[in-house]
């Protein structure tokens, strides 16, 4: 049998609608027999309605936010993998930019960068990012 303290901890979560069916059942059994917790439940239901209304009245994000995020994503640095050997000083970098740019590949040999693929920005066609 649930105690009053346990019931009062669960009541706000019942009011918020997120208790499991099992917990709701146990709470209902307790509240049916406990007038103090029934009164608390009534107060919490009222408070819950007020809280939901107040939180929904919080201001929303100003317009234009998605465009700002999109602009930042387009400026993201390349992400990619480097495969090679430090000892030999040889590495191949393959990268796809954050948004809209074609695939590029470079060969780095002993500190020199040798373009292999897509470095004139003419390859790639339609890409989602």
């Amino acid at each position, binding site marked *: 049998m649930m105690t009053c303290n346990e019931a009062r901890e669960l009541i706000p979560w019942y009011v918020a609608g997120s208790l499991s069916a099992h917990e709701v059942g146990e709470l209902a059994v307790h509240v049916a027999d406990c007038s103090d917790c029934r009164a608390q439940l009534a107060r919490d239901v009222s408070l819950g309605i007020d*809280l939901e209304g107040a939180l929904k009245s919080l201001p929303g994000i100003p317009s234009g936010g998605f465009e700002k*995020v999109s602009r930042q994503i387009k400026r993201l640095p390349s992400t990619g993998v480097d495969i090679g050997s430090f000892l030999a000083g040889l590495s191949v970098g393959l990268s796809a930019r954050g948004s809209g740019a074609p695939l590029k590949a470079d060969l780095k040999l002993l500190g020199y960068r040798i373009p292999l693929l897509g470095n004139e920005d003419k390859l790639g066609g339609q890409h989602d990012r």
Partner: protein
Amino acid sequence: MSETRAVIDDQRLLSLVAAGKDEAFHRFYDEYANRVFRYALTLLRSRHLAEEVVQETMIAVWRSASKYAGLSKVSTWVFGIARNKAFGLLRREERGSRHPDIRLVEPDPADAISREQRVLHALNTLSQEQREVVFLAFYEGLAYQEVAQLLDIPEGTVKSRMYHAKRKLAEVLA
């Protein structure tokens, strides 16, 4: 829409974002931007900082959607990112010269203050930890187990924060 359906739709949408689909990302933004904004506003009490949290969160989602492992609901994952961004911004603000606004909402110049504003004022008297739990429960509808997972604290602590928050709200609104 049922909760299960919403969870599956969120996961499908996120998988499209992970595949780099711009349209899916736009839909994801539309679904979550306001929710993240209000969460950040509840935490930080600054519209300007809340806007920054949304931007940083959405960029993080775009970059790391493929890392979502499905261990929690997408919403819990997104709010986890937003929470980290919010506290990161707060730390930067505290080191710098800018300070968060004091109020969750601007005071109403009219004499008659609406019930909603009274409740928002009461929320403003809670600690940040209490406000967060109240928001996640009553706006996002998260269960206490989900809140505990998101905040990485014991379930008992979540219930305790809610209990004390509720008592304080009842006092202020009496």
